[in-house]
C-alpha cells in the first residue's frame, strides 16, 4: 500500500467533484490506479483515452507508482 496525490482536471475534476486528493492504493501502475478510481467515482472515459503524468512529466500507462508520487490523469486535450 502506497500513498499518492492525485490531481483532476476538466471532465475528471467535475466527475470527481474535487481537484485533488490523497489516495492509499495497492495499484502498481498509473493505469491500474485509473481503473480503480474510474470504478470508485464513475469516470466515463475509458483508460485507453487517458494519459498519465507523474510529478509533472508524461509517463506510460505501465509506469510504476512510488510512495509520494503526484499523479495527473489527462483526458483527451483540446487546446486552441
Amino acid at each position, binding site marked *: 500500500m502506497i500513498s499518492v496525490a492525485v490531481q483532476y*482536471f476538466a471532465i475528471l475534476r*467535475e466527475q470527481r467533484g474535487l481537484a485533488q486528493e490523497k489516495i492509499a492504493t495497492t495499484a502498481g501502475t498509473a493505469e491500474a490506479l485509473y481503473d480503480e478510481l474510474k470504478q470508485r467515482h464513475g469516470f*466515463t472515459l475509458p483508460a485507453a483515452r487517458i494519459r498519465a*503524468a507523474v510529478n*509533472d*512529466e508524461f509517463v506510460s500507462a505501465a509506469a510504476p507508482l512510488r510512495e509520494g508520487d503526484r499523479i495527473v490523469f489527462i483526458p483527451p*486535450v*483540446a*487546446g486552441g
Partner: protein
Amino acid sequence: MFRLSAESFDPAALQRTLGDQRAGACVTFEGWVRDRNEGQPVGSLEYEAYGPLAVKEGERILAEAHGKFPILGAVCIHRVGHLQLGDLAVWVGVTAEHRGAAFDACRYIIDEAKARVPIWKKEHYASGDTAWINCATKGEHAGAEAPPPA
C-alpha cells in the same frame, strides 16, 4: 516562449517582441472563439490547463519547431478561463528569413499544441448544455467526439 494567460493579451505587443532585422517573414495564427461547433450554436468557452506540464510541453513543441525549420523566433500564448465569442484563445507567431519556414513552423506549432498540450475546452451551448470537447463517450454528445481542427 510558451505561456498561459488568465487575462486577455495584446497580440501586436507580442509580435513586436519578435522583431528581428534578419527576418523577412512573420506568420501568425490566432484561434478565435467561434459561434458554433459541429453545427451547434456556442455561447462561450472555458479553457482549463494543467499548468506546469502545459508549459513544459509547449516549450518542447517550440524547441522542436526550431529544430525542424530554419526560423528565427517563435512564441505561443494560450488563454485559460472563461472566454466569450470572438475572444482570442491562442496566438502563435513565428519569424524567419523566408516565408516557407515561417508558415510551416507556425502550422506545426498550432497543430502540435492542439494535440499534445494538456489544455481542455468546455463549450457552453445556447441550449444551456455544456460539453468538454473530445471527452464525450459513446452516446453522450457524440457530435463533440471528434471536432474538426479549428
